[in-house]
């Protein structure tokens, strides 16, 4: 049966809560309302109010309490209603959760998952559109994932819940209902730290993740058809730790790399990827690594301005053509 990205997340929560009674869900309006986007719908009915907990609007507390419970061996899955509000919990994530194991000389763990709906393209303006992953991808102790498909949404969440480290799980709001696929019947997990080749190609590579994966695939199809240019598409899936091998392999294979993300250009993870390739695969390059990302500005409310700020299929096609011609 076809399952949406949103339903896949919901399935993962159901399955993991059934599997392990230490798993519980906590956040604003996650229980009775089933979350602002209905991601946690049905959990309250299935697992009761001890394990599906509505909290006050207190992001720092939601994460901090998650850390406390995790130290004692619980496996909290806490929700930031929008990833934009994760900044209210920043201290608890980067100072409490990320350093916990290190501070305890490796003798404690913090198996916490922080779910954060991210992404623009729904006219949410400045504080309901952010892609804050790069604030976290430089924090040792954290893992950061950003699935693009229903399969990965489910498999990565299950892996995140089982992981003994704090994992920040970015789910893209625009994908919730727009992306769907058949999921296998049985149990599966997508390992953290492993990228996925979405499409093999010979001429160019695109490295991307999350909200822009589908735009990149559309652009690749256009290049294949109209330009006879064969594009390889690597979906990172995990942003911390990066799958260096997969990144360097595709760079070496095609010699021309475009990095695409919906996060802003400056300080986005594209810079790290470009540096990795420059350091370790320079000899294989036929062109400088290019980046296409959101403009370095805030996300405007005005729909035409928002469109102008964000990457889209047309912009990716243009960037690919320019790189192909290099």
């Amino acid at each position, binding site marked *: 049966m076809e399952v949406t990205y949103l339903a896949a997340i919901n399935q993962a929560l159901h399955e993991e809560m059934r599997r392990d009674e230490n798993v519980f869900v906590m956040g*604003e309006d996650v229980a009775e309302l089933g979350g602002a986007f209905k991601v946690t719908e049905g959990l309250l009915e299935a697992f009761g109010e001890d394990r599906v907990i509505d909290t006050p609007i207190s992001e720092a507390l939601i994460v901090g309490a998650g850390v406390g419970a995790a130290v004692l061996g619980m496996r909290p899955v806490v929700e930031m209603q929008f990833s934009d509000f994760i900044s209210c919990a920043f201290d608890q994530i980067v100072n409490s959760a990320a350093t916990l194991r290190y501070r305890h000389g490796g003798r404690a763990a913090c198996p916490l998952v922080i779910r954060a709906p991210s992404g623009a393209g*729904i006219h949410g303006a400045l504080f*309901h559109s952010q892609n804050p992953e790069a604030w976290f991808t430089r924090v040792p102790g954290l893992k950061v994932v950003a699935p693009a498909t229903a399969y990965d949404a489910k498999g990565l969440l299950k892996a995140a819940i089982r992981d003994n480290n704090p994992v920040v799980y970015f789910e893209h709001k625009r994908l919730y209902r727009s992306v769907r696929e058949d999921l296998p019947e049985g149990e599966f997990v997508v390992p953290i730290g492993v990228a996925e080749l979405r499409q093999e190609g010979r001429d160019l590579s695109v490295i991307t993740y999350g909200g822009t994966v589908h735009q990149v695939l559309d652009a690749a199809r256009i290049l294949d058809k109209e330009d006879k240019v064969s594009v390889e598409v690597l979906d990172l899936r995990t942003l911390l730790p990066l799958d260096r091998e997969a990144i360097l392999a595709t760079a070496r294979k095609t010699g021309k790399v475009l990095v695409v993300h919906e996060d802003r250009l400056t300080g986005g993870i594209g810079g790290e990827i470009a540096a990795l390739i420059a350091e370790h695969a320079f000899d294989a390059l036929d062109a400088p690594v290019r980046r296409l990302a959101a403009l370095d500005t805030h996300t405007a409310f005005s729909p035409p301005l928002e469109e102008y700020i964000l990457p889209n299929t047309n912009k990716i096609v243009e960037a690919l053509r320019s790189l192909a011609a290099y």
Partner: protein
Amino acid sequence: MALEREKHIAERALLTMDDVQIIDLYRRMVLIRRFEEKTAEMYSRGKITGFCHLYAGEEAVAVGAIAALYDKDYVVSTYREHGHCLAKGAAPRAVMAELFGKATGISRGHGGSMHLFDANLRFMGGYAIVGGGLPIAAGLGLAVKYREEPEVVCCFFGDGALPQGAFHESLNLASLWKLPVVFICENNFYGMGTMVQNAICQEELYRFAEPYKMPGVRVDGMNVLEVYQATVEAAARAREGDGPSLIEAVTYRFRGHSMSDPAEYRSRREERIWQERDPIKQLRRKLLQDRRADENQLTTVETEVNAIIEDAVRFAEESPEPALDTLGKLVYVEDDGTAQS
């Protein structure tokens, strides 16, 4: 009971106001209601997009409180701020155009419904981060006090903001430093789908004033005169240098949390009970009863307001989209401050 005392205070407010002032309160409330009704209509027709939170039902809070301020006083608000912004004197054209995302909007189309802002009007912004406005209000108060200016800062926030650290940090500091801030909590019983009693250990929200050593009152937020009088007193205190106050205005949002919320977590019966307490109908009845206005005057107000709202929509529709090259110009101040004068 605190509310009983406030009833008498409201009567007193009525006596101190002349007919022009009183009809103006009515006009402002009707303006906000019609504005919100029109906004809902435009939203369902796809003219307005994004997240949009309406203020219908709560008009008495913004109008009563802001009427008790001087034009030069400051207002800080939330994402449910169309009402506060209009009550502070923003042109309905500029607010509607903002909701449409147009260049003529109050934030030039860059902010939308949740981020109205006009420093000239001393409307210091809607804050889409719950609790986000409170520290800013403290900072405005700090600057006012530092410069020995006579203004006060009026900060609106929902019941949902109380569990945020920002609420407690701001009340503590405002009290400690005797900052001229009036904190107004709009208790509409819900933060999205969560009831106050499921989010806050102390349901009588005005009691949070006590640990922070400031006066706290609960007023009927469906009665514009009660809100007015309570704010007059709190603002006078702030202006005297005696520090902040906390006003809890008990109110009700007539619609769901946002345009996409069918409000299934509350009963239709509960909604009807509150609709009977509609602040606009209450004031209308009172004005006619006390012969402070006649039917004719009030109908004229309503007709005038309707025309203003129609004009605002027309203006918003006809306005241009923001130019793409405005993007780069709005992020930084271009003058970096190092130029020699």
